[in-house]
């Protein structure tokens, strides 16, 4: 069985460069229609919206960014690295952290790491604390993102990182933030 749907192949080859399928309708205000919707058994899996944005439910939707913060001294409360800058609307999906050298579990001296938007709204539901045994090269989740608007960035929004030491804090070697996000506009 090879029926399929619309199949246009080199019609008029060498003769015409005409548009074979020209859809033109209405003179409305450009309602928020999708240009293309692909669904699997009634569930949408890919679309291209009225502005050309393609969204999908497959792994296509993930975009990745990484920021190397570097070596963090035990008392790093004063520094505020900027780790991400958006040029269009997007939603942060996850944030991971890694170091390049093992760190032992220390429940007395540690860091609390938070990510914030440019207005200092918290992006992590709870600050990530480093009072865990941390293996070099292993990315650990920074935790759940807030279910508010702060992980939703518009163009020119940026993400900052803050450190708050407990007791004498904790030094970290080669700290790196790993970000996954989706385009939203």
């Amino acid at each position: 069985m090879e029926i399929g749907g619309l199949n246009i192949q080199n019609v008029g080859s060498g003769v015409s460069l005409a548009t074979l399928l020209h859809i033109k309708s209405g003179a409305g205000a450009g309602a928020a229609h999708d240009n293309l919707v692909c669904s699997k058994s009634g569930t949408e899996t890919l679309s291209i919206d009225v502005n050309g944005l393609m969204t999908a439910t497959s792994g296509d939707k993930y975009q990745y960014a990484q920021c190397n913060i570097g070596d963090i001294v035990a008392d790093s409360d004063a520094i505020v690295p900027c780790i991400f800058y958006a040029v269009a609307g997007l939603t942060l999906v996850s944030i991971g952290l890694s170091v390049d050298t093992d760190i032992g579990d220390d429940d007395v001296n540690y860091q609390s790491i938070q990510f914030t938007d440019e207005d200092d709204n918290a992006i992590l539901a709870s600050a990530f604390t480093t009072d865990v045994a941390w293996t070099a090269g292993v990315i650990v989740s920074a935790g759940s993102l807030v279910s508010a608007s702060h992980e939703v960035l518009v163009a020119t929004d940026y993400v900052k990182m803050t450190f708050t030491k407990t007791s004498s804090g904790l030094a970290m070697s080669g700290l790196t933030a790993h970000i996954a996000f989706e385009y939203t506009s």
Partner: protein
Amino acid sequence: MAELDFTDCPGNKPSLTLVDNRKRDLWRFYKGATLVSKVNYLGQRYSTAGDQYRYVQVGIKDIVANNDAFEYPLLNFPAKITINSIFLAVDTTVAADSTNYQTIAATDDGDNSIASITTATTGFTEGTARTMGDIDSTHGILSANEGLKLTFTKSGTGMALSGLNVFIAYTINEAYTNGHSIDEDDPPLLAWIDSPDASEVILSDRDAGEHIDLNNGAFKVSLDGKAITTSVDRYFSITSCLGDIDVSGPTPAKFAIFKPSAKCRAVGFYIGADTTVALSSDSNYMTITFDKYDTSSELEIARCSTSGPYASGTALTLGEFTKIADYLDGDMVELNTELSSTDYIWVTLAKTGTGGTNLSNLTVQVLYEKLE
């Protein structure tokens, strides 16, 4: 209802098949009179929405006051690209200084300025991204495999910057051949809709087979909504600055370079540094290994070495990425290139002899494709 409705399209052929051998776009969608989406004959997708942008970020860390000798590799993409914006940020506020300051420039391989700023009249506020200003309309377009780097020129005694991060947004240019250019000819499918309602233009809803096939697989949409292309669109990159590697000390254990959230394939590895490292020994060198870590074992994908050996080592030029492995060239362990959502790419270092020359701001770039 949809203008074209392929609900429960019979058979196993795609809902929509377009093949055209005249090197024109396959489809274009307009919003009013504005082109918002298209797919060209190579399967390359164009969008005016936010998904047109690719992001690369490089944390190049602390900059000393006299930083003139260093050049930092940022990006090297295997297709023609346009740099859209470059922003910089530091982790500690520094005031402007009209006597002792830095001129920071993003340049191409020919040292042509793409954008530049100084800290003479404007400093940095910690945690706040600062634009490098307008992108040069000529040099902001980089050829395939042309590098982008960051350079510093001090005035007076210069200015130290703490925790410098670079944020780059770029778009992939259309790869036309045979003299064709954008909008030269109308496509086979043209939708120009001031939609009177919210219905979609094209709807494909099915439970088997593919949705779309343009130019015999140049662009396809699978049943599960995966957009597959054979064009340069399929490449993505990530850059990771691993910092200074002092061969006299213990090499750090492992660097996590990349961890996808869905299945990907590594297709290219590059290394660079902010100073030149020549091949200088057959017995003292540093081996850099790119491994896949599948949460239980380390599986080598590719390796290279700096400082030596003469016959097989990789010489580094400051500010430039050197490709050390390419999937298509067969110099990766193919079996290990595929990454699931729980896999990592690790970089590990191992000294032979003294380890050779120190590596200043060792930086790696991973090129990958999404597989699902």
